[in-house]
């Protein structure tokens, strides 16, 4: 027990920090009067939408603001010493020795031309002056400490030979080698799969305890905050609007912005009602457009009064340790909140009626990629051909007007399935029928009408829009191509579509670079729906977006779907989003659908062991909910050489439920066990045993 009679000084104390950037529009204040403290062995979550100044605060602490950024006022005390005004040399010493940062993309933090071992050892050789052999030994120990399997061998590998989760572990190990007092993590798990994310978050918890490091954890994901943070600071438009211990924040959010954020996040609730999303209307104002001398959130706030528009509220402590920057903090009851007229929230989709006509019929679909063999024989065409079995025997029937969600880790074949349906990849075998027509040919050979009926919304709206065309031209293009409307009506139709995605006519002449991420995705949706398709494939349409934007886009998709009766195939790795959005859910693993059924059935026992593991990995935005802790070992095996029998048997945590430690799993393909008429599980474990399992998530 580590009890102290006198409190230790905080590792980091930020007071009234304001940071501004010099731009063409003059000095722009990016961060305004932010104050917080970080103690030893404590994680402070810095939360907010993008553009709220979270990363700017981190860069301010590290003095990475670039030539045009500067700290206008305030104080940053690290270990009792003021950082502002120190020489470059002193700061560099501090940064290397006592403050480290972990970035979002691990691949960019690692040098691709050096082995992991060289990069890790270098830290100790340079900063600590250790001998190379000693540095190597310690680096290997640290890799083991971050639960890297086979650490001595990983030391000899290059970054590209590791998976994303392993790369992030290497980066975290590297950050900890110096035993820093302060660790700043900027969205360290955002780029990772949910199962990998869960393992990394567990690791961060352990390390915080063992190393007594103070952590600043920057994220937009409230689920992650609930899991790893002790204290939370909510930022909005460069200001700190609420600061509280994590439990208090989730139990009693005081600021209307925090309350709004909570309403945006899909929860893994048991009922659909609980998973309704209410986006915050409007969006984060650009720094130069922020209200001055007023509450910064007033333009988007449902409770704003005359006072909010004329006077700037100060951060006031409402209960001990819980402060909010709102005049009415503590007086607002979030449960009494009603959506204003401006936000329309469509009810989540209707239930599945079996009599619906089947729009998409997939039977035993296989998409293999041929892998060039390295053997000499193959030069003469004699080598044994190898295949990556990306999709391996998928059966799927999608009824009209229904949304089917597809979930799974990356590398499970979700995107290949979508690409095969849309015609970007040719199926190797199997039946692929759309509206009764065979569509196993590539998209270039498909009939125009077929293409018209089958559209797609892509993950990254940035890379799927031609930057040289205006928004209007982009949306008009499918209208002209498919002759959806007569040529003279194209303009009106584009405007109508823009309105449908809640953008006004002024967007017609804008270029993609003038749009925010959420707006771009709206244009992408308008474009996909322009030809009035029967089936729309959505490949991770919201994973690149902020929570409040995500809620708006999801609601928009639901709304449009209801209006047009469109069928959707919705691919996502976020199980709470899929839960909210889909009527039927297919869980994919290594090219197989291992569980399929109505959304409610997927999220309650009986589970496929893989579904169970996925659910237990989802970060839940509720610090008091309990969640079973099931962590999958290792990565998705290579699809080049998938495991025999049940493809999941190498990682299955439930295999021991079967006699002989599940010998049968390695030998025999699992049977399709039907739980109900619409719900099946691909597993050897009897349904009765699966039914007896506890639900993964119990809320308090």
């Amino acid at each position, binding site marked *: 027990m580590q009890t*102290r009679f006198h409190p230790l*000084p905080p*590792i980091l104390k930020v007071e009234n920090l304001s940071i501004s950037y010099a731009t063409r529009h003059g000095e722009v204040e990016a961060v305004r009067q932010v104050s917080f403290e970080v103690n030893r062995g404590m994680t402070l979550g810095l939360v907010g939408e993008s553009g709220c100044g979270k990363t700017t605060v981190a860069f301010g602490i590290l003095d990475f603001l670039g030539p045009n950024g500067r700290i206008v006022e305030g104080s940053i005390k690290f270990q*009792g010493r003021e950082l502002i005004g120190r020489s470059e040399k002193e700061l560099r010493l501090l940064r290397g*020795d*006592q403050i480290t940062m972990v970035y979002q993309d691990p691949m960019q933090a690692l040098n691709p031309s050096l082995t992991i071992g060289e990069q890790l050892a270098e830290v100790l050789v340079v900063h*600590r002056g250790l001998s190379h052999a000693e540095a190597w030994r310690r680096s290997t120990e640290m890799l083991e400490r971050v639960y890297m399997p086979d650490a001595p061998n990983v030391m000899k590998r290059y970054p590209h030979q590791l998976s994303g989760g392993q790369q992030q572990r290497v980066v975290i190990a590297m950050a900890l080698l110096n035993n820093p*007092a302060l660790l700043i993590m900027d969205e360290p798990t955002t780029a990772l799969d949910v199962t990998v994310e869960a393992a990394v978050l567990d690791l961060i918890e352990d390390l915080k305890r063992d190393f007594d490091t103070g952590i600043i954890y920057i994220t937009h994901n409230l689920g992650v905050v609930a899991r790893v943070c002790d204290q939370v600071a909510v930022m909005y438009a460069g200001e700190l609007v609420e600061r509280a211990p994590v439990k208090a924040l989730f139990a009693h959010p005081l600021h209307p912005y925090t309350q709004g954020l909570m309403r945006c996040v899909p929860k893994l609730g048991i009922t659909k009602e609980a998973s309704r999303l209410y986006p915050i209307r409007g969006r984060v104002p650009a720094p130069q457009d922020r209200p001055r001398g007023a509450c910064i959130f007033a333009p988007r706030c449902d409770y704003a009064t005359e006072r909010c528009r004329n006077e700037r509220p100060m951060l006031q402590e409402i209960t001990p340790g819980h402060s909010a920057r709102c005049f009415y903090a503590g007086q607002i009851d979030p449960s009494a909140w009603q959506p204003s007229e401006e936000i329309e929230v469509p009810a989540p989709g209707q239930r599945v009626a079996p009599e619906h006509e089947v729009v998409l019929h997939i039977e035993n679909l296989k998409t293999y990629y041929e892998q060039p063999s390295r053997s000499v024989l193959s030069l003469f065409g004699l080598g044994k051909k190898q295949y990556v079995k990306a999709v391996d025997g998928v059966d799927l029937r999608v009824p009209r007007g229904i949304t089917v969600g597809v979930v799974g880790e990356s590398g499970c074949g979700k995107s290949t399935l979508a690409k095969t349906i849309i015609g970007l990849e040719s199926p190797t075998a199997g039946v692929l029928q759309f509206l009764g027509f065979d569509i196993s040919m590539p998209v270039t050979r498909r009939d125009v009408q077929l293409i018209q009926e089958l559209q797609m919304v892509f993950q990254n709206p940035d890379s799927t829009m031609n930057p040289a065309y205006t928004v209007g031209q982009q949306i008009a293009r499918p209208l002209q191509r498919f002759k959806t409307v007569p040529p003279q009506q194209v303009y009106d139709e584009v405007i109508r579509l823009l309105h449908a995605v809640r953008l006004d006519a002024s967007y017609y002449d804008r270029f993609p670079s003038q749009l925010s991420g959420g707006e771009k995705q709206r244009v992408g949706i308008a474009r996909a729906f322009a030809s009035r398709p029967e089936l729309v494939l959505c490949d991770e349409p919201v994973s690149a977006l902020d929570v409040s934007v995500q809620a708006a886009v999801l609601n928009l998709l639901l709304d449009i779907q209801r209006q047009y009766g469109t069928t959707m195939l919705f691919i996502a790795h976020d199980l709470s989003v899929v839960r909210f959005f889909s009527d039927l859910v297919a869980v994919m693993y290594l090219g197989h659908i291992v569980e399929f059924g109505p959304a409610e059935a997927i999220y309650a026992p009986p589970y496929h062991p893989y579904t169970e593991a996925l659910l237990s990995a989802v970060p839940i935005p509720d610090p008091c909910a309990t969640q079973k802790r099931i962590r999958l070992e290792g990565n998705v095996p290579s699809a080049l050489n998938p495991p025999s029998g049940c493809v999941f048997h190498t990682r299955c945590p439930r295999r021991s439920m079967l006699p002989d430690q599940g010998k049968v799993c390695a030998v025999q393909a699992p049977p399709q066990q039907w739980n109900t008429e619409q719900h099946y599980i691909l597993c050897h474990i009897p349904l009765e045993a699966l039914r007896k399992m506890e639900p993964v998530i119990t809320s308090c």
Partner: protein
Amino acid sequence: MFVGDYMTRHPLTVTPDTSIVEVQGMMAENNIRHVPVVEKGKRLVGLVTRQNLRLSPIELSSLNVWEITRLLSGLKVKDVMVRGKDVITARPDTPIEEAARILVTHRIGCLPVLEEGILVGIITESDLLTQLTNLLGLQVPGWRATIRVPDRAGEFAKITAAVASKGWGIDAAGSLPTPRKPGYWDVVIKISAATRDELVAVLQQIEGQELIDIRATGP
């Protein structure tokens, strides 16, 4: 019970070139008395304590107030610190009683904790005294009983057996030779599961031992 478990990790540090005025400010603001001096790579090069910062009365009497100010403002940590090998240090695997002995014999207040020359923490008198309070169970509410036992094998086992027979647990325990009474030891145990009367009844029954004090302690 090793230094590594109870030391303060990430102690506040200064460099040899830090001014004395700044160190004084740091000490006052954070209420600390010792600051390790490190170079690049957290290699320990010295230690500053409040004593080092004090000017001797003889020196003071010969200066006027302006000279004192000038003297102070020009001074750097490296001018006053205890240097390199004169600093007495510990390792993370030093037992805490050993650390206490070093502090007492050298009449000092803290030990920087080093791992191959690199500063990993600091352990002070306060840290060790805090652990003394934990050792005797001050951090849990309950009954603190002092029992005087003869100095022979098996006496402590009698106590644990008596307590265990009731299904209670011992939250903390410690023993010292009885002062000014050779041949006896005083054992202190902390128990939270029992009421005072239950505990007294059980402890008084033990043959050859004497319950000399029982009181409630807690945080």
